Structures are given as structure tokens and as C-alpha cells.
């Protein structure tokens, strides 16, 4: 459990980090919480020649609301997301999701940006940023770039980022009527299947819906068939149930491992889609009935 030797430098600012990253010529990796990278390094599955530590760059972490949108700094740890009063109030699905990542130690070190950049196929956040149609703000030597979440996840551990770019923040319009439901892998606590659903509701109908899926395939994706089925539908369990049935029908590659076969994962996609949608529906109803206590969404996994 000892990595190969590497150099280490702490970046003092975003520009400093970008400069150091560019100077390394692809030899360096960024480290913030290190909760994806360090285990890989310890197993010697990743052997970067240098690490650039961005954990203490001022302004890289924090959660704020600006002009009706939520900005979460890439360096914000899961615990801070999970316990954010702003998110609990305006967009509880993000806090709920963060609260289900790993264990308390992981949540106090791991960061939003790190999770997205690493793009583990079973990570939780990707489903949520897809459902929120978030923008991912990157900075590189050529300046700023904004990538839509739906364009960001490309393949297994592969995202739309250049080697010298840094995720700076994630920005989205808050949605109260959104929820995340997850089947935990019982050792790692990653998602065997995780689904985030966000509903835009108007007059008792679903105006539009966005549903993000993680865990099932090589990378997180939107469940567009479910989204289309919901658009314009009444805000009822029946409509949700019918739409959830369509989840995952078109998935070509589905993961299989000792924890869950392909068959089982496929079967779980509509189950957790329905649960996420039910959670979103509950929130939509609660919102119209006045703000209620925003407890964790029902993941349906009572013993976790």
C-alpha cells in the first residue's frame, strides 16, 4: 500500500495550479481530497510523477447562491455539501447524495471536483449533476471553459477535460423537486445503481424532467426515454411508475461484477428510477404544500 515515488507541490492559486500543471507536461496529477487518486496510487494502478495539491487554493471551495444559481466550488468536501443549509433548502438532492457517499472519513476529505474529474462509473455525483443539467466550469492555460454535464462524461474514467484543465466549480439552477436513490455496493458504498431525478413542475404537471443514471454502465448518462415519457404528464405515482418502466431499456453496455450481475443491474435501473422519481414527487408535493422538513430522500434501502 505504498505508492511509487512522486514529487509534490502545493498550488497557491488557480493560476499557479494551471501553470504547474502545464509545466509538468502531463506528468502531474491534481490532488484535492485524494480519495479517488490515493487508493489507486497505493495499489500502484496510478503512478503519477508529481502531485499538485489544490486543496488549499483560496476560493476553490464553498457553496453560494448567485443570480438564482447555485455555485459549488470544486474543492468543497462531501460533508460540507451534505450539511449545507443552502442546499438543504434550495436543492436538497445534492446534499442527500453527498450524505450517501462512502463513510464520514471519506466525506470529510473527498471533493466534488475530484469525484467528477475521476468519473468512477459508480460514483454518485455524476447522476446528480446530470439531473440538474449543471454546468461544469473549467480553467486551463487557454482560459475558462464551460461544459454541460450531459457532455462531460465520455467513457470509463474519461471526461471532457484537457490534461491541463482544472474543475473550478459546478453551477446549476436549484430544483427542489429532485431526489437521488441508490443501491449501495455493500463493501465500497459506491452505487451499484444510482439514479437522480429532477422535475420541473407547473400546475400539477411535469413540465420537464431530467434523470441521471450512474453505476450501470461505463459512465453516467441521462435516461432520456424516461424524461420524454414524463414530459407533460400529471404529477401522479401512476405516471411516474409508467415512465420508470422505460428506464434502462436502451442501455447497451451494463456492468457486471461479483456484487451484481448484468441482469440484476438492468433490473435495478427502473426500480431506482422509480424511487428517485417518487422522492422528487414527494418534494414537489411538499413544495406546493409549503416547505416541509427536507429529510433524506427515500433510497428504499432501509438498512443502510
Amino acid at each position, binding site marked *: *500500500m*505504498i505508492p*511509487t*515515488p512522486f514529487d509534490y507541490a502545493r498550488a497557491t492559486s488557480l493560476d499557479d495550479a494551471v501553470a504547474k500543471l502545464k509545466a509538468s507536461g502531463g506528468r502531474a496529477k491534481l490532488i484535492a481530497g485524494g480519495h479517488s487518486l490515493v*487508493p489507486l496510487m497505493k*495499489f*500502484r494502478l496510478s503512478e503519477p510523477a508529481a502531485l499538485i495539491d489544490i486543496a488549499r487554493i483560496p476560493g476553490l471551495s464553498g457553496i453560494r447562491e448567485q443570480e438564482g444559481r447555485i455555485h459549488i466550488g470544486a474543492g468543497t468536501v462531501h460533508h460540507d455539501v451534505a450539511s449545507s443549509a443552502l442546499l438543504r433548502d434550495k436543492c436538497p438532492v445534492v446534499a442527500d447524495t453527498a450524505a450517501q457517499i462512502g463513510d464520514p472519513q471519506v466525506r470529510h476529505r473527498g471533493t466534488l471536483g475530484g469525484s467528477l474529474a475521476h468519473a468512477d462509473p459508480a460514483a454518485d455525483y455524476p447522476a446528480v449533476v446530470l439531473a440538474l443539467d449543471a454546468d461544469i466550469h473549467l480553467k486551463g492555460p487557454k482560459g475558462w471553459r464551460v461544459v454541460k454535464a450531459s457532455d462531460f462524461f465520455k467513457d470509463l474514467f474519461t471526461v471532457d477535460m484537457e490534461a491541463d484543465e482544472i474543475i473550478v466549480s459546478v453551477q446549476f439552477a436549484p430544483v427542489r423537486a429532485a431526489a437521488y436513490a441508490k*443501491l449501495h455496493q*455493500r*463493501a*465500497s458504498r459506491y452505487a451499484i445503481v444510482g439514479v437522480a431525478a429532477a422535475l420541473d413542475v407547473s400546475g400539477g404537471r411535469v413540465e420537464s424532467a431530467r434523470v441521471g443514471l450512474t453505476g450501470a454502465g461505463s459512465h453516467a448518462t441521462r435516461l432520456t426515454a424516461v424524461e420524454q415519457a414524463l414530459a407533460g404528464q400529471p404529477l401522479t405515482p401512476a405516471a411516474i411508475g409508467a415512465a420508470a418502466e422505460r428506464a434502462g431499456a436502451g442501455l447497451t453496455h451494463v456492468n457486471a461484477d*461479483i*456484487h*451484481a*450481475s448484468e*441482469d*440484476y443491474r438492468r*433490473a*435495478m435501473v427502473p*426500480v431506482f428510477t422509480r424511487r428517485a422519481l417518487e422522492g422528487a414527487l414527494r418534494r414537489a408535493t411538499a413544495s406546493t404544500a409549503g416547505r416541509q422538513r427536507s429529510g433524506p430522500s427515500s433510497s*428504499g*434501502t*432501509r*438498512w*443502510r
Partner: protein
Amino acid sequence: MTTTPILPKLVGQRVKRREDPRLIQGRATYVDDVTLPGMQHLFFKRSDIAHGRIRRIDASAAQAMEGVEAVFTGAEIAELLGPMPIGTPYSSPAHRAVAVDVVRYVGDPVAVVVARDRYVARDAADAIVVDYEPLPAVVDPELAMKGQPTVIHPEFPNNLAVALVPSGTGVDAAGKVDDSAIDKAFAAAEVVISQRMVNQRLAPCAIEPRGVVAHYELGKGSMTIWSSTQNPHILRTFIAALNGLGQDQVRAIAPEVGGGFGSKINIYAEDYVASAISKRLGVPVKWIEDRSEAFVATTHGRDILGYVDLAAKRDGTVLGLKLRLIADVGAYNMLLTAAIPTLTLLMANATYRIPAVRATLTEVFTNKTPTDAYRGAGRPEATYFVERAMDMLAQELKMDPADVRRRNFIQPHEFPFTTQTGAVYDSGDYEKALNTALEAAGWDRLKAERDAARAQGRLVGLGLSMYVEVCGLGPSSSLPTGGWEHGQVTIERDGRISATTGASPHGQGNETTFAQMLADQFGVPIEHVTIHHGDTAVVKQGVGTFGSRSQAVGGTALHMAGGKVKTKMARFAAALLEAHEADLVFENGRIAVKGAPASAKSFAEVAAFAYVPVPLPEGLEPGLSEEAFFEPANNTYPFGCHISMIEIDRDTGEPTLLKLVAVDDAGNLINPLIVEGQIHGGLAQGIGQALVEEVVYGEDGQLLTGSFMDYALPRATDFPRFELHGCVTPTPVNPLGAKGVGEAGTLGSTPCVVAAAVDALSGFGVRHIDLMLRPEKLWRIIHGGQA
């Protein structure tokens, strides 16, 4: 007149563990905290294939690295060390500490790097090139028994580590088998239950992985070895033997040990190699296991396949039991490997008066990490096989699982009870444990709750399991190490008490329980008593901590030693007080003449006299220190009943444990708080076996659960609040009446949770579900058509 209140008796009280503050505040010394001048660090290069012939090892690049002191290959280690000792009577393949020509499991060491720090050592290991000729991996024990796909040790045809051990009715001492009784039982059966059952392989996962520091002092010609072990005296025995040293020349120290669960009984390759390299190079060396290594290099547990046949009458009376066991022991026999499954044979009678039992055991080599003791060690397997069969019988006969058990219990007046497989149960009242559990759980109410939940479409089930286990190991006739334990009690010159025990606690709390006993025995405050353990230079003799023996055997030895000192101390006090010994009372840290408290002498005063005895009372030697070896006449047989309620998510198959009630009868309790802690831990591991834990190998012999990313341990949030209830049936085997409780929790919990899951899914026609209860497995039962 003194007005001091009399010190309360501590035995039976919930005294908080004295060892905990240092452990939870990071103020304890573990092996990795031991640092010596000039110390070098070891790293083991391990096989990454399951089976293969070593063609060539090129360590030249590693040897050339800065900071590398030496690299030893298996052949070079073989020049320093003979094959590793085995502690069982079964013939075993020669097991070299580092593989010489063939690797036989993923993790098998092939070379050792010695370097100035662990980082250099680790890097150098990557620079060693090993050229293997891959051989087919033997993974499935039932194929292995046919020699397929190959044979791992040529001298063990068909991979049979132990070809066949018969036990039970009609088997005589020489192993001669007469089938007539068992055949008759099955011929008379009105119902026969037959089931193949898997008791899966587990990784012990002590919170502290293993580690060793060895220091051979050239000047003194003696060795000190620190190791994370459960039994430093056994370690000393074998380290001395393999290094050509006398036992007087080796000092073994088990410093703070962060759990073992049986996996730290074995003396490991790394212990031997560290000692041999230190002796060879004349420098101290350290090796610390990392978690990934622990999954391959520390012994696994369980992994026994059982073919169970139960013959009964339709009223539920059991007539006979056939139990055919196949144990997958991995690639080698370790210290106790071959003996562990024999405990499954021994306990095949369970809590029942089964008139005819035939149990047979075959042990099979496979290309996996070797197995050895793991909490329960053979007894949870026996419990599982028999209890599952009893449930299936109940289901077949549409009887309540409690009733079918009740019909077959060994009755209280039948103890000592000799089982068909030769165990002599010391004492028991199984029906009392069952009734206590049924009442505590509210069995009938739970059944109504279950039925109400089912009416709503929920999948809720109830499970119940009895258990009896063999503890307090054990007479010397049953243990090659000796079955005794040693204790020494010294009244120091200031009147305080030092005691040493050969039991080597690593989480059991004996610094507290033993001090409670001695404080009561002498009538002194517990703060005046210190228990020393884990250092063979301090503790004269010992066997160690395993088989739930510390209290029953080690506690008794201390109690005996304490009695001897107390007798001698009374003689000194009698001389001081000019009284008769029989008239003295030990109370409140003082010794007084009965009825004349003003006469009292403090412990310090009596001790001062005993160490400077002027004049020396006639017939006495100076000093107050006595020792005792306690050899129990028999094992102890604790028992109990566990009940659980489970709900299974219809959509996902995920099980949720709703309720767990445990009644455990461990005889007399010294400290109920510690006993409950032991039961909690045992339940957690037993439920873990039922719900989340499983070592999985691929067909190529690769370990697929090699980290906590894939090997799940249960978490606190997985459990309901455990409901524990007592029941006390003292053992006649020792004067304390204590039976042992370290492993008990693992026995009943696993089968009762599986029984509850089967009950929950009984609507789907299921009779048995193999361990462990993966959600997908349960989902497939629920959604059979779709799966």
C-alpha cells in the same frame, strides 16, 4: 474503629475496561510502534498468480538499489529455515516460509527485500523479476478431490489434505466403521431432510494487521521478537526451534494486539523470516503487514461444504444425522489448519439427543490462502449445518422451529452428556435458554407481526437457532501445546499486587476481569492490582488466548495462584498479629483478626514483613509470590439461543435485520459489561457472515475480494439494537464456574439470520439459501421468472 465501608465485591459487576483509555487515546504500543536503532525493513514479494512453477528470479536490479541491504529468494531462505512447523497430527506438505520452486496461491511469498525503510523495500520488490511457468489453478474443492484440474502437492493424491476422518456412532477409536446403527436410524425414518450447504470462506480482518520486529543480539546470542500474536509462548517455542536457539534464548513479546479472531494463533512465514534474517544479518528487522497483504497473507476462516441428511419421525423426533464435510483448506496446512474442521465433527450432535450420528470429514488443498482458526473455528459450521437441517425439518413437518428443537433437546439431568462424536458436554439447560429467548423476543407476538406484514405484501421472516460450543480449551490431551494455563500472583513489597497470565489478551479485557477476581480474592481495591501479559520474559509460561479459554483456564490458574499467596500471606500476618491464620480476615486492603478490626495490619505492613522477615516465621521462606498451572479436566460447553427477524426488499432483494435477540449461557460471569461486548462483537461477525462477508476467488485463483472495496464488513448501522439476555448454568469443570464467551455470538446468529430469510421467502417455495445472502441471490428467488 475504622468507618471505611467494606469494599464492594467486583466479580459480577459491570466494571469498565481498564485497558480502554490507553487504547482509544492512541497511547498504546503496537508492533509498528516498536523502533530500534539500525532497524531494517522487510517487504515480501508475493506471487500474483495462483499456481505456477518459478523458472527464474532476477533480483539484481533490486539489489542494486540504494538503501537495499539484501534480497533473499526462497532458496536462500530455505538455507536459513527449515519447513514451518505444523501443530496437528495430520501429515502435511513441507511448507517453506518463502516458496522455493512452486507458488501455490496468490500472495505466496517468493522473495524478501531488506532495506533501510519500508518505502525503499516496497520499490525494490517491484524491481524483482519472477519468471513463472503457470500451472492450472485448483479452485473448486469438489473438483480438487478428483485431482482436477491438477494436483497441488504431488505427495497428496487428489489434493486430499486429510483423506477421510469418520466420526460418530459406530466408529471406534481406531477409526473402524460399523454402519448398522446409522443405517437402522435412516431405515426407520418417516422423513429425511437432505441438503448441500455452503459455509463460506471469510477473512478475519482484525483492525490491526499483523506485524513483527525481530532483534537478534549478536553480543548476547539471544533473540527478542515482537509480534502481533495471540500466543507469545507458542511463538517463542517455534521461533527458537527454527532458529536453532534454546527457548531460554528467545524472548517473545505480544505488545498491544489489535484483535486476532483466531488469525493470530498461527506462527507465520513473516515471523520466521524476520527472525532468521535478523540472526543472519545481526540487525533488527521489522515487517508490517498492510491491509491488502492481510487479505492474502493472513489465514482465512470457515470454507466448509456440508452434505447434511437428517432422519426423523413425523412427530419431529430426530433419529439420525449424516454429515459429510468437505473443507477447502487452501494451499497449505498452517499451525492448526487441519484441526479446525475436526471441531465441526466434534460438535455434530449440537444440542440434541440424536441417537445415531455419522460425520465424516475430508480436507482438500486448493490454490487459495490457507485457512485456520477464525472466531468460532469449526463450531459455527457445525451449528449452521445442524440448525439449518432442523429448520428444514420443521418446515417439512409444518412445526414451529422451537417445537422441533424442544422435542430433541438433551435434558438437564443427562449432563455430563457424552455425544455420539465423543464430546462430553459438562452442563446445560437448553430448554431454559430456548424459553428465555422465546419469551424475551415475544415469539408469538413476532409471528403475528410477521403475518400482519406479509398480509401487506412485505417479505418478513423469523429465524431461531440453538447452539452449543466447545470452549475453555482444553485438556492437554486435546492440545499439542498443552491445555493448561499459567498464572502467577505476587504481593509486592508495598502491598500492591502484580499478576502475570499466560493468556495473552488482545481485546478480551482480561486486565480488567482478572483484576476484578484478584481484588475480591484479597479484599483490596482493583486499583492496587496490575495484570501483566504478553511477554515471555515477564510471564514464565503460557499457552495463549484462543478457543474462549482465557477466563475458564487462565482465570482459574490466577485464582489458584492467588489462593496460594493468600495462604502464605496469612501465615506472615498471623505471625505479626500473634493470631491463628484461620482467625484472619482479608478486607479493605487489610488483614485483621476476626472480631478485632483495630488489630488490622495493612497489606503494605504484612508485605514489608514478608520481604524483611525478622524474625522469619518457622517453616516459611521470605517473599510473597506463587504460581499455578491449571489443567482443566474437560472443555466447557456454553450454549444459547438466538432469534432474528428480517425483512427483504421485494424490489431489490436487500435484507434488513429488524431484530436480534440473543440468550447466551456462558456460566458464571466475571464482568457482564465485557461479556456483552464480546457477544456484540460475535453477533456482528456472525451476522456479517450471513449478510455481507464472503471471500471470493475467480476461476483462475485470483482473489476478487482483496480489499475493503469488495470485501464487506458489517457496519453499526446494519444492526438493530441487540437484545441480550442471560441464563447462567455454571460449569463444574473449574472453580469459577465460567465457561467462556469470546466466540459464542458467531454461532447462533448466522443460522438464525439465514432461517429468517428463508422464512421471509417461504412463499416462493424456498427451503434453504446458501451463504451469504447477497441481495441479488434473494432477488432471484423473488423474481425467479424474470431472473
